[in-house]
């Protein structure tokens, strides 16, 4: 059986993944080499090279997939699925990997000048690349085993990155809280894997979907459903499980906050969506997920209004955005899921930019208190302008890309016959503008005497400007993103038989 399998399939990880893994492993050596030889920024050049070639590899993988409904089955260990573990790359995986690679490249470039002051750069870039590799692996996984391994890889590097500035007490405390909650969630994920294994005798996504999907809900399926919600929900910060996020995200270094809020919690949502759509039919999870969506966005918006710390406010706003994304998942239609994943991409740009731009401001002003930042915006015009664009996008103002995806999300709630979800979403969007406008007002009001702040370094500013341009561009011309998002959502919702047939004949 193994001999029939083509040899060139063996020991071949998907290209973006292997580049990230090799890049991460080589980073400390390259860094040491650069220090020994006295070549400045050798490490930075290497990291930029690795993350940009990841982006190119994602493009090549997309070309290799050829058709919109094409599926790549990659079996690195030589065993054919369903018994061997595999990577199954469809349009949705490509979409997620695309977002990871894009944000990862921008964050890596931003870090070059942000992290100079903090030091321990070898560790930092290695962990950053490992975190990206973990997310790439989660997005491409074709079975639960692979998903779990890469899930833990992503989680482990993010624990360490949250607690990266270990000289201060706050990052350590936040990191420990994050580790406790996230590891508990990991145990629940493993438990739900064992239940799935007990029910179907396999961990392969396609085969377990063929066995479980459409089965009448038994008590064990309900137990499985709640274990999955806990397992993925902690990472994606759905409200009763969110308490680690407002501590962990602000205390991490700003580029890492951008990465965590921009894409790591969305990877949790990706896992939840993928597994729920594989195992259950939408009518089973429509009600619980809608309730969680409303709870998440309402509570997070109320808490965000109470914050004085700018990064903490943005962290609560991430939770609220998670609530909007859940609307699309709960709708159970491919239109709604398209909204969800378009919002995932747009949110990765907007929240990434918000954290990076506020990171520039915090980096220069050396305070995170909104009241103390009064007037800083007049001295850092470009960073502040980009921050404004991202905040307006998060609030869903037309002509930014946040408007497009929120429009689709709320529209999908109406189409599926749950107008109360759309009403809750619109009210929450309007409500969220209250605290975004508060930040803007503080930044541009009259500065206090004696405040001296300069504009951030050029590299940091240019990254934020590029992201702001993308936000406006995709706001007025959303077709390319819409096309990819609609392919991705159709691969998940309508193409599920196609996904199953790629493995189970």
């Amino acid at each position: 059986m193994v001999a029939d399998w083509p040899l060139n399939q063996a020991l071949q990880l998907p290209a973006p993944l292997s580049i990230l893994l090799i890049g991460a492993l080589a980073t400390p050596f390259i860094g040491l080499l650069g220090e020994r030889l006295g070549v400045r920024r050798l490490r930075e050049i290497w990291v930029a090279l690795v993350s940009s070639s990841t982006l190119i590899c994602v493009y090549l993988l997309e070309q290799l997939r050829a058709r919109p409904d094409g599926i790549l089955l990659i079996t690195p260990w030589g065993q054919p699925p369903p018994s061997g573990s595999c990577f199954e790359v469809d349009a949705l995986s490509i979409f997620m990997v695309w977002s990871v690679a894009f944000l990862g490249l921008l964050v890596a470039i931003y870090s070059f000048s942000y992290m100079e002051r903090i030091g321990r750069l070898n560790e930092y870039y290695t962990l950053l690349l490992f975190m990206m590799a973990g997310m790439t692996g989660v997005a491409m996984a074709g079975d639960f085993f692979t998903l779990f391994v890469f899930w833990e890889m992503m989680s482990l590097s993010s624990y360490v990155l949250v607690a990266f500035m270990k000289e201060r007490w706050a990052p350590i405390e936040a990191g420990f809280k994050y580790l406790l909650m996230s590891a508990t969630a990991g145990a629940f994920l493993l438990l739900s894997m064992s239940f799935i294994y007990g029910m179907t005798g396999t961990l392969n996504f396609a085969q377990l979907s063929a066995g479980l999907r459409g089965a009448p809900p038994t008590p064990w399926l309900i137990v499985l459903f709640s274990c999955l919600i806990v397992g993925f929900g902690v990472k994606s910060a759905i409200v009763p499980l969110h308490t680690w996020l407002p501590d962990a995200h602000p205390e991490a270094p700003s580029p890492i906050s951008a990465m965590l809020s921009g894409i790591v919690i969305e990877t949790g949502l990706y896992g939840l969506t993928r597994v729920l759509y594989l195992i259950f039919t939408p009518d089973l999870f429509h009600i619980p997920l809608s309730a969680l969506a409303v709870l998440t966005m309402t509570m997070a918006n109320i808490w965000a209004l109470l914050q004085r710390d700018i990064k903490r406010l943005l962290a609560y706003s991430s939770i609220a955005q998670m609530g909007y994304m859940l609307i699309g998942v709960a709708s159970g239609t491919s239109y709604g899921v398209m909204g969800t994943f378009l919002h995932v991409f747009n949110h990765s740009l907007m929240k990434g930019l918000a954290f990076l731009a506020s990171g520039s401001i915090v980096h220069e002003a050396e305070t995170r208190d909104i009241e103390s930042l009064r007037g800083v915006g007049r001295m850092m015009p470009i960073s502040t302008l980009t921050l404004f664009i991202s905040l307006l996008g998060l609030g869903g103002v037309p002509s930014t890309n946040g408007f497009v995806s929120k429009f689709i999300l709320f529209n999908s709630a109406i189409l599926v016959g749950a107008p109360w979800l759309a009403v809750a979403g619109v009210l929450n969007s309007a409500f969220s503008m209250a605290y975004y406008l508060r930040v803007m007002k503080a930044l541009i009001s009259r500065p206090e005497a004696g405040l001296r702040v300069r504009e951030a370094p050029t590299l940091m500013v240019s990254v934020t400007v590029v992201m702001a341009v993308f936000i406006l561009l995709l706001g007025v011309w959303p077709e390319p993103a819409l096309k990819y998002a609609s392919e991705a959502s159709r691969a998940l919702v309508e193409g599920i038989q196609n996904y199953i047939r790629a493995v189970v004949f």
Partner: protein
Amino acid sequence: MIPYQPFIISTILLMAIGLGCLMVRRDMIRLLMGIEILFNAANLNFIALSAQVEGFVDPLAQSVVMMAIVLDGAVIAVGLAMTLNVYRHYRTVDVRRLRRLRW
């Protein structure tokens, strides 16, 4: 073929013990032990469910459990490193003292 009911019951009991440990204990190292118990509960369930066919033990579950043990060891190692750093800052490993981050 071994009956799985006793194992499912002990899994649920272990989960309850682990969660109880996470809720009640204040010592950071004991909290990490609680996480260990949770992971082991899930591992036990996997192993029990892998031997449900007469004369056949599924290697898939065994390999998943091996990998899970490794991963959870790595998580605990990171947790212990953080505990060490917490001790340096606060001179205690009592989580009740870690209260400065709220709301």
